[in-house]
Each structure stands twice: as structure tokens, then as C-alpha cells.
């Protein structure tokens, strides 16, 4: 298979477009002054990532991604933005403070490291990915998984569900559920309002429970 042939394969085209979309949308999100627009660009990014999930045989994750992120998280963001009437940033927030670019530089350094790690030969993923000319393995047979012996195909909801509730992951699942409850309680406490007893008086009794 030639490179051109390979590059014109539909999956590659899809992956390329989704990747570009995700990165560009992310940059747009970060750079928008208007927070509402930023939130909408975030939606684009998340959907693009969901597409990438699909190409990775993670259909369920893609669906959950769209449902939870787009359907709940971003909506919540927008709701809060509207609530606070903070859609437009005041001009005072525009200038970058000192030390910002140091952080950006460090983040860029991290990027370099990630790339270096991803493209060096040592990571186990590359052994799989190093053979673009070899025939790719078909959907892994159900018995091939290290842990999961399932009759269902890899990445299918049944496959993921079985893994989710397997003995290996059930404890984490429970912890996550407790975390959700804790967050719920926490949000309720915050929403009902805290009565600060600070001496400054700047927060005291501002809100009724």
C-alpha cells in the first residue's frame, strides 16, 4: 500500500479532519473574549474528540462524551454564564499578568516532552503502530483481551459494561459514585449559601439561606 493510497483511505481522512477540528476549536475556545463563544467552541472540540473515540472503536465512550459534556457540562457552563451575566469579559481581564508566559513556556515544554515520548521507539503503543504497511489486525477477538473474556466485540456497550462491573473496576466505580454524592452534597451546601463569620463583614449575611 502506497503512502498516497493509505493517506486517502477514508478512516485517515476522518481522523485528520477530526484532529484538526479539535485542535483549532480548542485554540478558538481559549482565545475568545466572549465566554459564550468560548463555550460553543468547546462543544466543537468535544464533538471532534468524540469522533476520534469512534475511530478508536470506543463507540460507547463517544456517546457518553457527547451526552455528558455537551449535554450537561457545557449547558451548565452556559447557564452559569447567563446567571452571572458574565458573558462579555471586562477589559480589565484582557492583559496577561506577569509570569503567564512562563507558564505557557512550561506547558509548551510539556508538549515537547509528550511528543518526544510519543514518537520515540520505547512506548509499547508504537509497536502496534509501527507497522502501517502490515495488515491491521481485525477487531480483536473477544478472547484476545488481557482481562476481559467476553462474547461481545471490543468497545461495544456490553463489553465496556462487563469491564466496568468486573471485580477489577468495581471498587473504583463505587468510589466514583461516592464522589458524585459528595459533589452533590457539596454543591447543595454551596447553593444554599454559606454564612461566613469572618470579621471583615464583606461576606457576612449577604445571602439568605
Amino acid at each position, binding site marked *: 500500500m502506497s503512502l498516497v493510497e493509505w493517506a486517502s483511505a477514508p478512516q485517515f481522512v476522518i481522523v485528520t479532519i477530526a484532529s484538526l477540528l479539535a485542535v483549532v476549536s480548542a485554540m478558538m475556545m481559549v482565545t475568545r473574549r466572549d465566554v459564550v463563544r468560548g463555550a460553543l467552541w468547546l462543544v466543537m472540540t468535544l464533538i471532534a474528540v468524540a469522533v476520534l473515540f469512534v475511530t478508536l472503536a470506543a463507540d460507547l465512550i463517544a456517546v457518553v462524551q457527547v451526552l455528558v459534556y455537551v449535554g450537561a457540562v457545557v449547558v451548565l457552563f452556559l447557564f452559569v454564564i447567563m446567571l452571572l451575566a458574565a458573558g462579555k469579559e471586562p477589559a480589565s481581564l484582557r492583559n496577561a499578568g506577569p*509570569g*503567564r508566559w512562563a*507558564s505557557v513556556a*512550561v506547558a509548551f*515544554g*510539556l508538549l515537547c*516532552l*509528550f511528543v518526544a*515520548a510519543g514518537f520515540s521507539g520505547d512506548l509499547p503503543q508504537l509497536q502496534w503502530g509501527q507497522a502501517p504497511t502490515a495488515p491491521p489486525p481485525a477487531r480483536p477477538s473477544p478472547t484476545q483481551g488481557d482481562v476481559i473474556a467476553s462474547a461481545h466485540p471490543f468497545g461495544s456497550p456490553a463489553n465496556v459494561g462487563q469491564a466496568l462491573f468486573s471485580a477489577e473496576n468495581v471498587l473504583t466505580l463505587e468510589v466514583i459514585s461516592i464522589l458524585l454524592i459528595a459533589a452533590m452534597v457539596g454543591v447543595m451546601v454551596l447553593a444554599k449559601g454559606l454564612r461566613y463569620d469572618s470579621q471583615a463583614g464583606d461576606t457576612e449575611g449577604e445571602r439568605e439561606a
Partner: protein
Amino acid sequence: MSPLDTLWLVLLGPALGALINGLWPQRLRGRVTHGVIACVAAGFAFVVAILQHIALGASGQEIVRASYFTWIQAGNLTVDFALRLDPLSSVMCLTVTGVGFLIHVYSLGYMAHDRDYVRFFTNMNLFLTAMLILVTASNLPLMFVGWEGVGLCSYLLIGFWHRRESASRAGFKAFAVNRIGDAGFLVAMFWCWKVFATLEFHEIFERLELATAVDVRWITLLLFVGATGKSAQLPLYVWLPDAMEGPTPVSALIHAATMVTAGVYLVVRMHPLFHHPESAGVLVAWVGALTAIFAATIAVGQRDIKRVLAYSTVSQLGYMFLAAGIGAYVAAIFHLVTHAFFKACLFLGSGSVIHACHEEQDIMNMGGLKDKMRTTHWTFLAATLAIAGVFPLAGFFSKDEILAHAFQANRGLYVIGIACALLTAFYMGRVLFLTFYSGRRMRDQAWEKVHESPPSMTFALVVLAVLAVFGGLLGLPAGLGLPHFLAGYLAPLLPDAHGAAHMPARLELALMGISLALAIGGLFAAASLFRVRGAQGEERLRKALGGVHTLLANKWYVDEVYAAVVVSPLSRLAQAVSDRFDPRVVDGLVNGVAAAVGWGSERQTRTQTGRIRDYVLVILTGAFLLVLGLIALGR
């Protein structure tokens, strides 16, 4: 059981007395009980000392040594708590306990009305304990314990009336000056250890050949430095006259009869070293002689009765060192003993006078007490004649023996010695006549109240006066073929006991004649000046001496010179240190550490900006380093 089996018994009485009086939780109802306990303790020690003395003589042994326990054990240094009884320490024990007992009895009356009666007797008994340890110790460190113990008691008792500032200052001065001498003692001890590898007396004396000339010279010199401190010799004598701030019995016991003779005892105790031709003996003799004449001149100009006696003590101690320095150890010990008798008697007599005159100490304000205080007068007279060296009283024989030795050893020393004898007779005569004769100079009111002291005081006076009169019988001049009991007794221990025996009888008699003539001459000079005229006599003396008298009355300005040369620079240094070094360096160090920590903390709080961005920067940097590390390790 022989008393020699229980050498510690001599320490028991005073130690127990001090413990009982010092630690008894409540004051006994009759406070005299405390005094009686102390007297019994001292008396018990005296009896034990007598018994031990007799037993030692009967046993025919030279030295009895008993080790009770190992006191210090460090490396190859072993120091035992060991006592030693030999003729020398036995004589010292007898003197200390005997005179000590009498002074305890005297104190019963003298201190009867003092508010700190119990403390006084506690300290007195403690002093006796320390002094007995000093004289019975069998090694240098134990002796040093006694040495420091008597120093401590001296300090406590000089400052006994601590509510008076001059007393507490005098106590401090005595302590500080003694420290200088003690440093010498300590270094001498270290040196001994280095040379002889032992601190036991008998072992040191056995290993004398280990010492080089330099060793001997320095050890003896340093020991003598210690002795000058304790025995008030030039240049460290200045504390003793001030020590008269203490109660008079203290002056009598500690600063005349016993403690100040510790230096003489030390030199005699270490005589094998001092006898070495390379030793500092010559220096000892000259320092003693100069001290004797120097202190005697000062005594002429003093008006305070106790100060005169104090300088007299310094002077007589100078005689003892003169004797010890030229190797006349027996003469030194002989004079030590007789001096203990008559000087204790003089001090107690002066105490009796002061007591009667309501704390008046200036002899110019006394006079005519002869008829009011008969016993005191007679005993004081006897003791004055004794110290002046009038035949046949105690001082005559002991002083003559020293002078005879000095004549043989060095004519210069002899000349100083007889000049000093003349001065001694003169200033003692001056005190005697101004106090007891020469008409009364007191106001009527005070005069009415003058009375003879109670029997407990006069008893001690009489006994000491008798000893002062007959003490000379202990050491009749051997040169005339008379028996010298003390020399015979000390003979096994002290090598030159019969040094004076080689002198021709004619020369001996001639020297005696000179001494006696000078003594009587001095007394007569004093009598002609003061016996009738009293205060006018003093006036004439002042005119005759002119500027010299001012010099003498001001003690040659030695205290002032010391203050200017030593004390003032030191206190200025201390002041400078406390003004500059302390606040800047010491406080600066402390505050600097605190300031540095505060500054550093302040700096560190700046990292806590409260801005999330800055914390994220740190997190990102950490993540960066983590990934970098993982990659580096993975590779």
C-alpha cells in the same frame, strides 16, 4: 581500738555539728542549744585530736594513712578519699581544734544577741570540718577540697553581716583574691600529676628524682602562689585587712589562728619539694620577709584596732614564710602554733573591748579601759608581750628561732626580720596603751555602759593568755642545750629539725639579746608616746613621720594602686564587654538568627501569592520534571 584506726573521727564532730545546726528544720527553743551543740562538736574534735596525738606518739609510727573510698577514677588517675596522720598534721589538728574550741566557747557569749546565731555556728563548724580535711588530707586534691572549703567558709563568715554592704564587699574581695592563688594551686597540682603521675603526698616524695630542676622550680612557685592567696602574702594580702568586717571570733579563728596559716602548712607539707636546691624557697623567704616589714609599717598607721591586728597577722605570716623559705620548717610551725595562741587571744581581747564599747573599733576613741575590764586587760597585755617577743613568753622563742635561722641563711633577711620585730613591738604597744591606758576619751554616757565581758568570753581569753605565756616551752632553743619538744616530735618528718643546734651558744645568746632589746625598745617607745599622752602622742607621731604617716595610714595606697591597675581596667573591660560585645555580638547573634529566620520566612511567603496561576506554574513545572524524569529513566 586505737584512735589511729579511726582517723575520720576527728572530722565527725564538726561535720555533724554543721549538719545538725544547718539542717535542723526548726530552731530549737533555747537557741543557746545550737551554740552548745557547736561547742561540743568542736570539743569532741579536740579530744579526738589529743587521743590521736597520744596514740601516734605511743605507736612509734611516723605516718598513719587510711583510705576510705575511691573518690575520683578517670583513666589512670585515681584519687582516694584518704586521710593521713603524721606529727605535722597532728600538731595542726591540735592547734585548729584547740583554738577552735576556745573560740567557739567565746562565741557563745559574743554572738549571744545576734539574730543569725545559728547560721554563725553552722558556718564555724563547717569551717572546722574543712580545715581538718585540709590538714589531714593525704593527697593534693583532697587537700584542695579543704582549701576551698575554708575559703568558702571564710567568704560566708566575712560577709556574715551581709546586710552591711562593706561586709559583703569584703567577702567578695576575699573570695576573688583567693581565686588567683587557687589557680596557682591547681596548676601546681596538674604539674605534679604530669611529673609524678600521682597526687598522693607520700608517693610524690618517693618519686622526687623524677622531677627536673624546672619542674621543681615551677611547682614550688605555683604552690607558693596558692599559699600567698590563702595566707595573705604580697601581693595578694589585700583581702585580709578587709576580712575584719566579719565577727571578731571569725577574725580570731579564721583570719588569724588557723585558715591563713594553711599556706604555711602547704609549704611545710610539701617541704621535700621546697627543700630541693632548685626550688622557689629563696623567693618564698624574701616574699615573706618583705610582707612582714611591709605589713608592720602599715600597722603603725592604722587606727582601727582590728585592722592593726590584721596587718600584724599578715606580718607574722610573713615571718612564717621567711622561716619556711629558708628551710626552717620547724621554726615556721612553731611560730604558727604560738601565733595561733597569742593572735587568737589578741583578737578575742579586741572583740571583748569592742563588745564592751558598743561596736567602737577606733583606738583613738578608747583609752583607760584597764580598770573597767581587768581580765581583758591582763590577757591582752600578756598576748601583746608575747607577740612583741618579750622573754620568756611564747613569741620570744618562736620568733627568735626564726631570726636565728635567718641570721645563718641570709643577713639581709635577718635585718628585715629584726626591723620588723621592732615595729611589731611598737605598734602592739601603741594599741595596748591607747586602748587600756592613757586616760579615757569616751563620752560619759558610753563610758557608763562599759563592762567586763561574760565568763564564756573571758574563759577563752584566760586559757589563750596562759598558752601565750607558756607556749614557748614547746620549743626552747636547742642551741643552748635546752629541749625543743616540737622539733623532737617533728623530727621524723622534717629533716632539719636541729638546724639551729649547730649555732654556737654565744651567738645564740647574742641574737636573743638583740631581739629582746628591740622588743623592749619598741614597747618603751610606744609607752613613752602613748601611755600618758594618748591622743597627743598620736599627734606627735604623725608630725614626726610627716608624709610617711599619711602613706602608712593609707596602707601605702596599695588598694588604690590595685584598683587603678587591676580592678579598674578589668571592670572597664567588663563594662565595655557588657556595653558593646553583649548587645552587639551576643544579642546580635540571637536576634540575628531570629531576624534571619524572619527574613527568610518573609521571603518564602512571597511564593504564596494567592494567585492560582502561580500555583499552576509550579504544578506544571513539577509535571514537566516528572515526565522528563520518566523519559530519562525509561531510556
